[in-house]
């Protein structure tokens, strides 16, 4: 549901759009610092209303590209268009059609309301209109009851929301977000990301998101552009980029770890059993107490695939004590993508798994997906293809576990 419309007065610009034009279009963009070329993008496009994530490692030129597109820095070469109209650094009206949230946004001493007003103060805005807008946007980011709070008393996550509100209140046609969650603790990050997703979905704005966190890109974006050393190497939907990476670099970057959330069921001398949200039981090595919530992360290269040797799947998982791999699940290959010498496969688990030590398989009724990476040679030998029944196995020690603290004020 789109609730945040675009009002002409707020955008400061003419709000005009050439029909059928992209929200942002750029070409031949080059930026050098001294002798070093930091950004070299031949063409770039963001469609109206979409969320585009620019994904890349640190130092790839993301922030520079961000500043160029947001008209905060002058490119050495190239052109940029907003909705079909050519714009430049000097174009104040163009800049006022956008708003940006930085990685570490600067807030001024004062109340939350004062800070949110900041951007409005640059444009002529009627006071009472401002009041209403501020209330609305604070509601949107979940800070409604902190309107008069002093920013010094806020937590990191709350500060980030204030920065977001400050940008949103300007009703920008294009919203730029530079690493919005990078500055937050890992535990806060996820929560904020979810809220961000909710906000972004309700906006009519086009959103350009800069990040090095692929989970963020995956969670928020309609399209992902992967950037390496100043150049865009691949653009596409998250699926295209993540599962059909064009180069090793893209594949490395997108990683594709399997991430599950669950609750600790038992702890026997350091060996925990966790029931995931998808109702799978996973054995991990961790120091958690029963009842604690945890986030599990499995690297694709740690997942091994084997073909069930027994015709009856249920019997396959008996006698699991003969292998050291504690987690073994039956599943069906959903997708396969090859790149270079590796093959990536997505396996949908069908809720049948072996619990170590038991003789009968336990049907748990849950589903989950696990992503694994195997060598092409192995894939060929196994005959890996969509629809194939496989056993996915992960060692307990290979799973990384992080406590998920719920109830922490974000």
């Amino acid at each position: 549901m789109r609730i945040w419309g675009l009002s002409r007065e707020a955008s400061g610009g003419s709000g005009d759009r050439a029909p059928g034009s992209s929200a942002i279009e750029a070409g031949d963009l080059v930026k050098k610092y001294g002798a070093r070329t930091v950004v070299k993008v031949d063409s770039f496009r963001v469609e109206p209303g979409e969320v585009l994530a620019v994904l890349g490692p640190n130092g790839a030129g993301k922030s520079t590209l961000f500043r160029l597109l947001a008209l905060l820095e002058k490119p050495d070469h190239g052109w940029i268009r907003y909705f079909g109209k050519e714009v430049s650094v000097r174009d104040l009206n163009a800049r006022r059609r956008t708003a940006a949230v930085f990685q570490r946004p600067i807030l001024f001493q004062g109340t939350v309301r004062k800070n949110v007003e900041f951007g409005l103060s640059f444009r002529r805005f009627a006071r009472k209109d401002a009041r209403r807008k501020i209330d609305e946007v604070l509601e949107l980011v979940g800070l409604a009851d902190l309107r008069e709070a002093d920013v010094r008393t806020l937590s990191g996550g709350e500060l980030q929301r204030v920065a977001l509100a400050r940008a949103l209140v300007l009703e920008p046609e294009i919203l730029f977000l530079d690493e919005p969650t990078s500055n937050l603790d890992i535990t806060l990050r996820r929560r904020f990301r979810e809220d961000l997703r909710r906000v972004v979905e309700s906006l009519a704005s086009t959103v350009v998101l800069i990040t090095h966190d692929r989970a963020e890109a995956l969670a928020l974006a309609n399209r992902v552009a992967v950037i390496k050393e100043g150049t865009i190497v691949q653009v596409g939907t998250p699926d295209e980029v993540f599962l059909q990476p064009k180069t090793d670099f893209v594949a490395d970057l997108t990683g594709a770890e399997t991430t599950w959330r669950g609750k600790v069921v038992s702890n026997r001398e350091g060996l925990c059993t966790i029931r995931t949200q998808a109702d799978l039981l996973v054995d991990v090595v961790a120091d958690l107490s029963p009842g604690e919530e945890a986030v599990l992360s499995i690297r694709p290269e740690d997942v091994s695939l084997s073909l069930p040797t027994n015709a009856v799947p249920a019997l396959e998982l008996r006698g699991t004590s003969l292998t050291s791999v504690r987690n073994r699940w039956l599943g069906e290959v959903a997708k396969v993508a090859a790149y270079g010498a590796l093959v990536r496969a997505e396996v949908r688990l069908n809720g049948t798994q072996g619990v170590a030590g038991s003789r009968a398989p336990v049907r748990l009724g849950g589903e989950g997906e696990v992503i694994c990476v195997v060598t092409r040679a192995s894939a060929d030998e196994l005959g890996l293809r969509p629809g194939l029944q496989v056993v996915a196995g992960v060692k307990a020690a290979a799973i990384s576990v992080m406590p998920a603290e719920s109830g922490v004020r974000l």
Partner: protein
Amino acid sequence: MEIFWQALRDAVVLLARGDPYVCEVMWMSVQVAGLATVLGMVVGIPLGTWLGIRKFRGWGAAATVLNVGMMLPPVAVGLFVFLLLSRQGLLGSLGLLYSPTAMVVAEFFIAAPVVGAITMSGVGSVPREVRLQALALGASRWQSLWVVLREARVTLLSAVVAGFGAAISEVGAVMMVGGNLSSGGHNLTGTMTTAIVALVRQGEYAQAMAFAVILLVIAFAITLALTYLQRGIRRRWLQS
């Protein structure tokens, strides 16, 4: 030591009586230094701000010039202004020598670099992100500059105060271009500092001491103001 206390006693009497010559000289000092400081602000603040914000090809040279201007011995400045305004000098035909105008010119060249250099330092220490953030939220170039200046306002105030302090305490330059002239007991181009020199030379310790006392009070007030301001330089913004 007796001579000191005697002079001090006489000085207090002079001040209490509100001796007209003393008042005129004091007013001249404040006027000339004040005007010089205002002109110094008009030139120094924009220049310092520009150098504090932008880095361009000649930046190093320009910043050095400003800093050198601040470190330049004021009496050298006086010499340059004197030669400039003397009859044989470039602007000699204006007949400005030995007038309050000449004194303002000399003190301007002393105050302006101080204001400019401190402004440059203050504006330069406002993080670049502040300006960028303002621009990113729709500020025009001028509006973003205003935001930066507002952040640096305490340092800017210190710059002005320091400039005034440098101007009002100047002796040599003002003596050279002003001449410490008086006419029939009324002050023409004397300032407190030059008057002290002349009076000591004449053995008029009481009057000299009177001016010294006033200057001390002013210096004290300036130092107090600067200290108070410096304590006020706390971070005005938060970075999350």
